């Protein structure tokens, strides 16, 4: 560590305290004096010094006890014990108690300077080591759960790229958390105070996509009764996330390319050129290079956007993350649903661990929600796990079996445009179904089933999102589905 440090001097003798203050100030450090161990503890907590110069004999309790209390509170500031010649043994004891060094009175400025510099360097190295260890061992990162090597690599890439303005291209199968990764890029960046605008290119009719991105002026097209800002404007200063970028029509790709190159665009129906400062994050579950080779994605746009790739691994490649995530969801859903579950039995864990999870984290999330809603107990037992998962897991262990694995869940269709922090969810699809069905009067139970199934279709069988669209609890959807299966109105899982 170089430059000024904050040094807490714990000393009840005014001469010693004044001398230390004068020497440390002369070395360019900031100094605080504590005349008792109790005052030192408070100062260490509140002032967060970089080093503590500690006399052992203090009026309330001694320096050894103070070091113990500091450690108990998780305060790892380097402590240098100040001792008289006669008490070298005390200094050795202090080192054993956790002091990084000791200094014998009377001490010259040069000696103090060297001792303090060593202690501060040790402190800085320990902090760096602890930060590196935390990065390598971390099992959570901006909403992601997982400590596997491929996820650590993804975390590192996100973290490294966040501070720059470079475009990020996220690839990964459905359900691997591409939008979560895009949000992580935004939240780890200096743009986090501004909007994160997510636009699903696959969910927006091609005629409306340009207006969604660039906005429109009144009268630009039929129904454009007022000016409307597009995602580009809303994301000014922030991040624009273009999900399913591969679905963008080629003519729109040309306009996007110009926007990416110049930072300027014209709202639909206007010749005005607006300029914004936007960071682009894109995602697709396809191989973007294959899309380029197939002529479905412009090569020049690809090279503009594919600056920093982030590849999210499928859940089957994440080893122990499966159980880490399963436990996380179990705790969360048990809390939400008022269930007693605290864990999984060993065989249940084994079944979850060997299953291939073609729908990735989203599928695992749905399975755990399903278990929690339909069962209760201290532990999740094997027979609580949906049959399809158990069967496929058994097949994994006995590969001779030809039983099919449940198909991957399709990518859910999210709201076409989402601006965060504003929580604005569109229910256009569900509203359309209501309108369509309104002409036909059917029993309420039939209408309820139709609506729930329609919401599930629209969200790619994502129960929590379907429930959110319907403004009901996900557990209601699970219970309804179970009931309909029992009545034979739906095929068994």
């Amino acid at each position, binding site marked *: 560590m170089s430059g000024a440090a904050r040094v807490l001097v714990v000393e009840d003798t005014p001469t010693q305290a004044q001398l230390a203050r004068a020497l440390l100030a002369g070395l360019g450090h900031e100094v605080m004096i504590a005349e008792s161990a109790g005052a030192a503890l408070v100062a260490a907590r509140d002032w967060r010094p970089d080093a503590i110069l500690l006399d052992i004999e203090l009026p309330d309790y001694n320096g050894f006890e103070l070091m113990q209390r500091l450690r108990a509170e998780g305060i790892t500031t380097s402590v240098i014990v100040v001792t008289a010649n006669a008490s070298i043994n005390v200094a050795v004891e202090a080192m054993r108690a956790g002091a990084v060094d000791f200094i014998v009175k*009377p001490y010259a400025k040069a000696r103090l300077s060297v001792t303090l510099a060593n202690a501060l360097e040790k402190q800085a190295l320990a902090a760096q080591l602890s930060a590196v260890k935390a990065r390598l061992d971390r099992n959570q990162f901006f909403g992601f759960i997982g400590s596997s090597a491929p996820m650590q690599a993804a975390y590192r890439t996100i973290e490294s790229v966040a501070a720059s303005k470079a475009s990020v291209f996220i690839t990964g199968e459905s359900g691997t958390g591409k939008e979560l990764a895009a949000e992580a890029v935004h939240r780890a960046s200096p743009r986090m105070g501004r909007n994160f605008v997510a636009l699903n290119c696959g969910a927006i009719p091609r005629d409306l996509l340009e207006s969604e991105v660039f906005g429109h002026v009144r009268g630009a097209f039929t129904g454009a009764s007022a000016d409307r800002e597009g995602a580009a404007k809303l994301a000014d200063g922030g991040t624009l996330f273009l999900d399913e970028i591969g679905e963008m029509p080629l003519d729109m790709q040309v306009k996007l390319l110009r926007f990416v190159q110049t930072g300027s665009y014209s709202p639909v129906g206007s010749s005005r050129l607006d300029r914004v400062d936007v960071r682009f994050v894109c995602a697709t579950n396809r191989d973007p290079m294959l899309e380029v080779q197939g002529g479905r994605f412009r090569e020049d746009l690809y090279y503009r956007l594919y600056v920093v790739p982030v590849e999210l691994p499928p859940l089957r490649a994440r080893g122990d993350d499966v159980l880490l995530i399963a436990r996380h969801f179990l705790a969360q859903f048990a809390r939400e649903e008022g269930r007693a579950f605290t864990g999984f039995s060993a065989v249940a864990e084994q079944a979850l661990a060997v299953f291939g999870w073609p729908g990735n984290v989203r599928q695992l999330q749905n399975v755990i929600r399903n278990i929690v809603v339909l069962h209760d107990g201290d532990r999740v037992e094997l027979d609580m796990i949906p049959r399809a998962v158990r069967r496929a897991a058994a097949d994994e262990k006995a590969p001779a079996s030809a039983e099919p694995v449940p198909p991957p869940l399709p990518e859910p269709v999210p709201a076409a445009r989402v601006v965060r922090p504003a929580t604005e969810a569109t229910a256009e699809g569900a509203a359309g179904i209501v309108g369509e069905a309104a002409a036909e009067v059917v029993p309420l139970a039939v209408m309820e089933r139709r609506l729930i199934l329609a919401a599930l279709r629209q969200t790619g069988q994502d129960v929590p999102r379907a429930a959110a669209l319907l403004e009901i609890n996900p557990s209601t959807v699970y219970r309804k589905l179970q009931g309909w299966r029992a009545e034979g109105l739906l095929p068994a899982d």
Partner: protein
Amino acid sequence: MSDLGFAAQLAEDLSPDDLRLVLKVFHADVQRLTGALADAARLDDAAAFRRAAHGLAGAAGAVGAARLEEACRRAMAGGETLGTGLAEVTAMADGALGDLAAFLARLGPAT
């Protein structure tokens, strides 16, 4: 021989004003703590005597008043009566204050 040998080192490490301030605080510490020693001896309060002697040893050690510091530590060890300890510490303290006055005179007036 002066009992403030280390003060010469301090004169190299500190600005004259800072050094004067440290020595002024030392002067105040000596007066306060020798008073506390005398009170403790009069009341035959060994614990208070030891605390004051420890404080004075620390102050003396800081500025390198070695003879005063040693006297304080002997007094703290408690091998003699409090009165004997007090007499020795007081004598050394007087000597240190005398040396201090001479040292300050050599430093010249404050800026």
